């Protein structure tokens, strides 16, 4: 399901002294099946844009097309449910949305709102819990008895249980330990392939952008300032610094190598790419050494 923004503007509290313009002239498409990263420093309008993906906010002017639904400033608040079933949003710190007595009921809450029977929803809940890597024993526990990381996974399972076509993730790994982060990001990548999801990831982790995304949208001061592949975005470190954005660790490392006189045909973004590029440049005599034991 593709999402297209056409000349979208959004203003918070128009007509009051608190009026603030959050989005200006947004024209951008999130292609069907893409893994799109939305980056930009704090206050650049990422979160406002994100809320337009699910019609939680409606544009002040312009149109947002979500699948075959067109959202305009005058779209009625009724009948948005069908749309919201197709777009699942995992907000920042989603564990704060848990409320049910048991984990199973909380995960089943979304599907039931969209018309699934209780039995079906609970069956789905059990499936989703294993999908996010938690033990089925937890189903009958209270979500408030779990650890922070487990609560996060339960909340994500609750969104996945709606079986959305587009999954929107707002810094899903913030506050998790490195191991948990890696597991979670791999899980999203796996889900995308298994269920042909479109993923939109809002993040400050340039490594995640380099490792997972195939499309990047850069925002600054409420405008989209650049779109393209991670390759194209990370090509220009100077431009990124001007927009208060960093480089993936690997690319930063490659930049230092370039400063010391090395050249790369293509800027390496991931560790594998860097390793391959370096191996290619090694003199054959070193490679001839045979097995590596380290």
């Amino acid at each position, binding site marked *: 399901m593709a999402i297209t923004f056409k000349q979208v503007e959004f203003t918070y*509290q128009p007509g009051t002294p608190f009026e603030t313009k959050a989005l200006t002239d947004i024209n951008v498409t999130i292609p069907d099946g893409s893994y799109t990263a939305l980056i930009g420093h704090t206050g650049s309008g990422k979160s406002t844009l994100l809320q337009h993906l699910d019609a939680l906010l409606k544009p002040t002017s312009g149109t947002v097309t979500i699948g075959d639904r067109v959202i305009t400033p005058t779209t009625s608040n009724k009948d948005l449910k069908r749309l919201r*079933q197709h*777009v699942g949003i995992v907000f920042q710190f989603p564990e*704060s*949305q*848990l*409320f049910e007595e048991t984990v199973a009921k909380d995960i089943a809450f979304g599907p039931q709102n*969209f018309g699934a029977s209780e039995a079906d929803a609970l069956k789905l809940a059990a499936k989703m819990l294993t999908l996010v890597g938690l033990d089925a024993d937890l189903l009958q526990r209270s979500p408030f008895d779990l650890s922070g990381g487990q609560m996060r996974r339960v909340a994500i399972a609750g969104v996945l249980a709606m079986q959305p076509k587009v999954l929107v993730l707002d810094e899903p790994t913030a506050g998790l330990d490195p191991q948990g982060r890696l597991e979670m990001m791999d899980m999203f990548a796996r889900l995308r392939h298994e269920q042909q999801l479109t993923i939109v990831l809002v993040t400050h982790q340039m490594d995640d952008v380099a490792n997972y995304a195939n499309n990047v949208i850069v925002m600054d001061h409420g405008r989209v300032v650049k779109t393209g592949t991670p390759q194209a975005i990370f090509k220009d470190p100077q431009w990124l610094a001007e927009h208060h954005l960093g480089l993936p660790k690997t690319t930063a490392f490659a930049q230092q190598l370039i400063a010391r006189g090395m050249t790369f045909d293509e800027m390496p973004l991931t560790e594998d790419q860097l390793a391959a590029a370096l191996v290619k440049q090694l003199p054959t005599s070193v490679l001839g050494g045979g097995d590596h034991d380290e």
Partner: protein
Amino acid sequence: MMSKMIFGRYIPGNSLIHHMDPRAKLLLSFYFIGIIFIANNWPTYVLLFAFTLLAIKLSGVKWSFFINGVKPLIWLILFTVVLQILFSASGGQVYFQWGIITISQFGLVNGVYIFCRFVLIIFMSTLLTLTTPPLELSDAIEYLLMPLKVVHFPVYEVALMLSIALRFVPTLMDETEKIMNAQRARGVDFGEGNIFQQMRAIVPLLIPLFVSSFNRAEDLATAMEARGYQGGEGRSKYRILKWHGRDTWATVTFAVLTVALVYLRA
């Protein structure tokens, strides 16, 4: 962001009213509510309205904020007015009578007076909250409660509770907005369907709010203790209240207003 909530919100500004001492503003606002009851005929009400509108003009805050302040209370006001019109003692010309219900000239006039009183009180208290930062207001309340210390009333604690409550109103609003969005994304319709469906929709909002409020309270207590808070006795102040000439003048103006009201009343 809940843009409709006007009550208790501060609009930054640079007017005479904004710069007044919060103690003066608070006391004079209460005093104003008192002297409204002196008014009992048209000239006095006209004078009170002129005074209130002048004060609003001086504050430089847009009129629409005051109208919006009345809106949420309009049904309560109309209900009171209708009761007054239907059930007050008959006097003057009687227009309609049925059982105990009487609509008389006396009742109608009284109804209009009641309406004016409500509007005046709401305008003046809205002016107070719109032009005074909440924390200054709680400083003023703390100062004015001081005499109660002789009867061992916990003034500092109450003032602290008030400051914390006021401070966390916007935080709680943001939190509400955030959780509402999360639950709407999971298919909850807030404000739709019959009353039972609406009540059910509130549960997924209230429980997370309670949980996060308790967590936040615990964090705040820890943070305060870590920074050495041991109760308010003997603490010095960051914001110090100062009584200026303009506050004295405002008080004099209110005194003149009172004299004029007493002179004009029937």
